[in-house]
Each structure stands twice: as C-alpha cells, then as structure tokens.
C-alpha cells in the first residue's frame, strides 16, 4: 500500500499494538483478555506492518517463519501441561508459584504459560496466512 502517511505511522501503531497485545494477554486471567485475543491483536499488528512495508519486511522482522511461532506455542502449551508429571498430578493441572517483590505479588503459573502458548499459536497461524496472502499482492 503505497501511502506515505500509512508507512510513517505504521511502525508506531504496530509497536503500540504489540505492547497492548502482551498487556491483554497477561491481564486475561482476571480481566477481559487472554492469549487468544492477545494473539489476534498481535497478528493484526503484523498484518498492518506487512501492508505498510511489504510482506518481505514483515518476514524479516519476524526472523522465523510465522508457523514456527505457532509450533512453539503448541509445544509450550503442551509442556506447561506436562510439567504436572514432575509433581505426580494429572496432565494440565494448574501449578502456581507466587513471588513477592516489595509487597507486590507476582504469580507465575502453568495456566499463564499455557495462555502464552495460545497467544503464539493464534499469532503465528493468522500471521502466516495473512503474510502468505500479502505476498501475492504485488503479483509476486
């Protein structure tokens, strides 16, 4: 999309969207949000980036093939579930650790890791499809 305004704004917009997607992902356990929505926002961000700068630039920015992110997500979610084997509890049992930093509680849990996996799957898959379609745009 050959628009100077769009190309100038896009990186800023994308950066904000990506940060926002992580924010949505992490707040999901207690407020509206979660890995699925976060992944969709991140994928939209990448789609915008691809439209503005070209699919090639978006792929370069990703470093890896988008589907690799999706695969990583599935593996991460499965591993988060499989961690229960160490504690001799059924597969996917939620395990929680709560750290305290100066009276601020930070909860680290397997459901959170699982949700991060979901985030990567949704992001990777949608981004892969969108980028593959954008590749064709210029008649490449």
């Amino acid at each position, binding site marked *: 999309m050959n628009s100077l305004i769009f190309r100038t704004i896009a990186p800023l917009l994308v950066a904000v969207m990506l940060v926002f997607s992580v924010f949505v992902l992490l707040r*999901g356990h207690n407020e509206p949000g*979660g890995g699925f929505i976060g992944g969709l926002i991140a994928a939209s961000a990448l789609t915008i980036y691809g439209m503005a700068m070209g699919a090639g630039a978006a792929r370069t920015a990703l470093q890896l093939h988008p589907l690799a992110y999706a695969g990583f997500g*599935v593996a991460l979610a499965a591993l988060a*579930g499989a961690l229960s084997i160490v504690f001799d509890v059924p597969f*996917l049992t939620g395990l929680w650790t709560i750290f305290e930093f100066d009276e601020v509680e930070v909860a680290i849990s397997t459901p959170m890791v699982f949700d991060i996996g*979901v985030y990567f799957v*949704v992001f990777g*898959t949608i981004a892969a*499809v969108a980028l593959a379609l954008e590749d064709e745009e210029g008649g490449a």
Partner: protein
Amino acid sequence: MEATPAIAIALVVLLPFVAAALAPLVHRLVGDLAGWVVALVPVAGFIALWGLLGRVSDGEIITIAWPWAPSWGLELSFLVDGLSLTFALTIAGIGAFILLYSGAYLKGHKQGRFLGFLLAFMGAMQGLVLADNLVALYLFWELTSVASFLLIGFDHTRQAARRAAIQALLVTGFGGLALLAAGVTIYTISGGWDLSAAGDLKGHLAYPLLVGLVLLAAFTKSAQLPFHFWLPNAMEAPTPVSAYLHSATMVQGGVYLVARMTPHLGGEAIWNLTLMAFGGATLLWGAIAALRQTDLKQLLAQTTLASLGLLMLLLGAGTELAVTAAVLYFIAHALYKAGLFLVAGAIDHGTGTRDITMLGGLRDPMTLSFIGTIMASAAMFGLPPLIGFFAKEEMYAALAIGQFESLLALAALVLGNALLGAIGLALLIKPFMGQLLPTPIEPHEAPVAMLAGPLVMGVLGIFLGFVPTLAGQLAVAPATSAILGVPVETHLKFGVDLLGPAFWLSVATWVLAIGLFLRLDLARSLLRRTATAIGWSFDIGFDWVYFGIVRVAGAVTRLLHHGRLELYLFLVFVLLVVAAIGPLWLLDGLPRGPQTLDLRFYEWGLVGLAVLGVVTVVYARSRLFAILALGVQGLAVALLYLVFGAPDLSFTQFMVEILSVVILALVMIRLDLDTADRRPLEDWARDGGVALLGGVAVTMLLWAVIEGPFDLRLSTFFNAHSVPIAHGHNVVNVILVDFRGLDTLGEISVVMTAGIAILALIRGARRQKPVEVAPVEPGPQPKRRAARKAVA
C-alpha cells in the same frame, strides 16, 4: 546348567529384539563375521530352552507373567509346555544355522540390516509360540508378518519382490485380524486374556464363529488353500529367509495355532472335518503343483505347501496317533526342508542357476552339498531309519482305522507322500547325478558357514531316527500331551513292524514315488499345458480383489471428493440446516418464537445496523463493498455482546471481524476476479435459498435453546470455583486455560494445522492458476470458542 524360566524367556524372546537393533553395529565392527557373532543369540536361547526340557518332559507346565497394563488386567504371560518348547527349540536351533548361513550368503549386501530383520523375526516367532496372553499372541503374530514383509521385500528394487512382500503382508495380516477377533471373543467368553485359562469353549454359542476365526488365521498364515498363493511368491526373498520363515517356522505359525487351540476347540466334527478337508486339498495341490516347477526354490515352496496341508490334516484327524505323527512330521520337515532350501541356496551361489533342468553332475564339485542333500532327500522320501520314516509310519497307522473320512485322508496321504518322495528323488538325482552340465558360474563348493546347517540338520534327522524313544520322551509325547490336553506316554520305539499295514503303505508310497519320478518330465509338461489352458490362478484372483478394492476406493473418493468448491460449501450448509432443524422438527421441539419484543432504543439501533449490513451484502454491486458490509454486520453483533455483558466475547468478535475483512479483502485481490459478482439465476437462487434456510434454521435453534429452562449448574460451578482453586477472576479465561485446558490444547493444535493447510492451499494455487483457492476465513475456530464462552 538350569536357567530360571524367567531368564530363559527373556533370553529367548527379548534378546533377539535387542540384538536386532544392534546387528548393523555388529556388522560394522566385525564385518563379514557378523553372522557368526549374531548366531550366538539363538544359541544362547537354545541352551536356555534346553535347560527347561527336563522339567517340561516330566509333564510340568511352566508359566511366567510380567505386569504389562495392570489397569486393563493385561499381563505379559508366557507358557512353556511340550508344544511351545518343541517349536521354540526348532526356531532357536534352525535360527542359529540360518544366521550363520546369511552371513556368508549375503556377503557385502546390507548384511547388518538383513541380520537385524532376521533377529527381529526370531524374537517375534519365539514370542508367538511361547505367549499365553492372547493380546501378546496377536502382537507377536503380526510382528512375524511384518518381519516377513521386510524380508521378502528385502531386495526392494525388484518389482516382483515388492509385490510378493505386499501380498504376503496383506494375506497374513488379514488372518491376523481374524486372530484378534478370536482373541477378543475368547476373552468375552472366559473373562481372561490368558489362553491357558480359557477352558473348553466347545459348548458356547459362539463356538462356530471362533472355529471360523481361528481357522481363517491359521489358514492364511500356513498358506492353506485358498490362501496358498502368497507362499510360492514369497520365494522372492533371499534363500535363508525362505528356509527359515517360509518353510520351517513362520508358516508353521498356523499349524501351531491349530495345535494350541485343539484343547479348547478341537473334537467337534466342524473343526476336525474342516481341517482335514482343507489340509488334504492343500497337500495334494502343493504336491501336484511342485511337479510343474523346475526352479529349485519354487519346487521346495510347493512341497512346503503340501507339508503344511499334511500337518493340518493330521491335526484335524485329532487322534493320539495322528497328533504324535504331526509332531514327528513337524520336526522331521523342519530339519529336512530347511536343509534342502539351504542347499538350493548353496547351488545357486555355486553355479549361478537354480533351474533343475540346467543342473547335473554336481556330486564332484559340490560333494558336501551332495551329502547334505542325500540326508535331506532320504528324510523326504521317508527311508528308515530316518525320523521322516517314523513320521510317515505313524501317520499311516493313525488313519488306517477304517472310517470313511480316515480312509479318504489315508489315500490323500499316500498319494501326497508319493509325490513328495518323487520330488525328493528329483532334488537329489537331477542336480547331482549324471553328466556335469555347463552352468553360468564354474561350479564350486559353498563356504563352511553355508554348509553347517544342511549337514548338522541332516545328521540330526538320522540321529533322531535311531533314538525315537528318547525323542518321544523329550519332545514328542510332551507336545502331544499339550495338544490333546491329556498326558500321553510315548510309544515310539526303534524298529519296523513288517506285518503292520503302515509298513506296506510305506512300501506302496515308495513304489509310487519311484514310478512318478521316472515319469516326471511327462507329468511336468502335462501339468504346464493344463495350467496354460485354464489361464487363471489364485494369484490372478488376488490381483482382482486387490485392484478391485483400489478401484472401488477410487470411485468413492472421486464421488465424495470431486474438487468443486461450490458444491462442497453447498453440501456443508445444507447439512447444517438439516442438523439444526431436523431434530427439532422430528422431536416436536420447534420454538414458539418470542411473544413480545422488549428492546431499548440503542438495542434496536444495533439490530438495525446488523440488518443494514446484511442487506447491503446482498445488494452490493462490488465485492469489496460487500466484504466491508459484512464487517459492519459483524461489528454490530460484537457491540450487542458488549451491551449484554460479554466483554471477552465482544473483544474477540471485534478482532475476528477486523481480521476477516482484511484477509477476505486480500483473498479477493489475489483471486483477481471481476469487481462485481455476476452469475446465472439458478446459482443465485440455489445459494440464496440455502442461505435463507440456514438463517432460519440457526434462528430456530437459538430460539429453542432460549425457550428451554436455563441450566445454571455449570455457571454456578465455574463462578464458585474460579477464584478459590484456579486463582482467576475472569471465568472465561480460567475455563479456557485451566478447567478445560485439554480442549484448548486440542483447539490450538487444530488452529495450527488449519494454518498449515491454508498455506499449502495458497502455495498449491500459486503453482497452478491462482483461481481455485478456497476463501480463507479464520472464522470457524473463533466462532467455536465464542460458542463455548457463551456457556459461561
């Protein structure tokens, strides 16, 4: 030294599998000596089994069980009695010579892998004959089929070898399924997986079914008519494989199964007569077909068919004498047939041909092979005092009892044995006597590793003939007892009853055999002409069935998978309508519809926006405009969710709508279509009709859901437990990542798989014309989640 049974079983069944994995490594380390090294595995097994022989021949039945899957009541149980020990000793003993032989026979030909396959087969075969657990029996049974597949197709660059391998696998694997069904049936009847605990199954209603299943398994494995055709084709395998799997051991698996099942199923006419009929038919078929062959291995394969039929016949007769004869014949046959195969391989190796008409006078250049063949042929011919003679005497004595079917079987036996005797003479005289004929390679003797088998087995056949009483005590009587289910004392003794009918039947057999041998060429040309005149064989029949199945599968695939996207979609939506409205209509659950409409003004506004969006989609001139309008409709729905207090759902719906519009727009650009969608009226009517019906159906369904009482149990549970046990206030998210995490794991796998499929579609379309790509819509997964969120 007496090993404990558990160690013995581990050595016999498990060690070959371990050795199979290590065989390529051994070959790399010691090169062509690998055969000598791996032969130690069956030797160790043989010694371990020998240590159990004393206890078993005293009538003891040794059982061993390891826990396997305790939650399903499965134990890996093994049983050593006379029957399994006789088979296991044969498998280990002959196996050692086969491995040794293979090392020399396949010098420099991917030997490591070959020895590995052979060892894996050996472990599976030992497991088959020693297993008591029916599941383990089935598993080992199929493993032998798989090993046989790998070994027949070992020379996989040849089309004939590949075909033979697939054919053997399909036929024996098909029988394996019957065995599985039989095992499950026995489990259902007896309540346990151990065959030894099954008891007498004859009185049960399912008895005829069981007999059918067991015999189907046995007949396919042991190549009985009409499943015999795979065995001659399996001669595509390297010779040691033919000697080991396809004469001495694997094909005896069916015979073993029949023997093993006899205490549970035997004794009824349906069992006995079926076995005798099929066994007798196979005996004569194989023996006559053998006359036609000139290739040494084909000759031997056909006689193996005959011998397998003979064993089935004897087991079918089922008397003590007949079963004793079967055990004796099994031992005799394993020794002489493996020996003959190995010599055939040695001749092939030493002269470059296996055609019996091109061979002659080999007694001088291949003296040791000649000696091995004399011993094996004599056993096949049934000369005293070889063990083969006693086997023949015993079977004649068993059937010369005057009943009609016995006498019929006796006639078949005499004729079959005479034919086999004639072949035995031919195998000795044609290649070794007479003038030395020119062969592709200058005839030379095979190395010692290839001769050890035939010579030792030949000597053993003679030795056992001199000590029939000992053989009877150690192996034959215990095995017979196991087959009959009652203790049997041996009656075998060294000597010939010159006045008994058995001896005179033997004499008749010899005379007939010599007569047939003298007319062998005439018989061959007659049979060949008959076969050509018939022009059909069971092998061709197999192809009919095989390609028939492929053709039917192809037709069904083409019918269902025609590749026309609009028809797929049409079908999907029609079925959706049927699935949504059919049950409601049939079960009289059609909704009454809302009685009053009590909406606020902004709710009316949102509904109006959604309706406007849909109407615009239908009437839009350009496709792009329609897509945008669709997005407007979606966003209106998302706003509705928000108004009715489902922020998560609304949030997701927003994102999905935006991405749908973007992706649909990208697809439209790629597809390079006209801006407007013009098509014939009938298409328009069809799609419009289905769309309207779909809308009505989904509306009806939702109304019906709303009209029913609202079940709060799940909502209550999740609301009550979300914070205390899952530490989360967002119930929707807690359900997704914790309570129903397994579902989500499945869903994200599906999402990723769908992504991969979409990429493949895009790439495939890119290679062809970029027209046929499916409209990519990320909708289904998010929608499914939305539906589930609505539960909360």
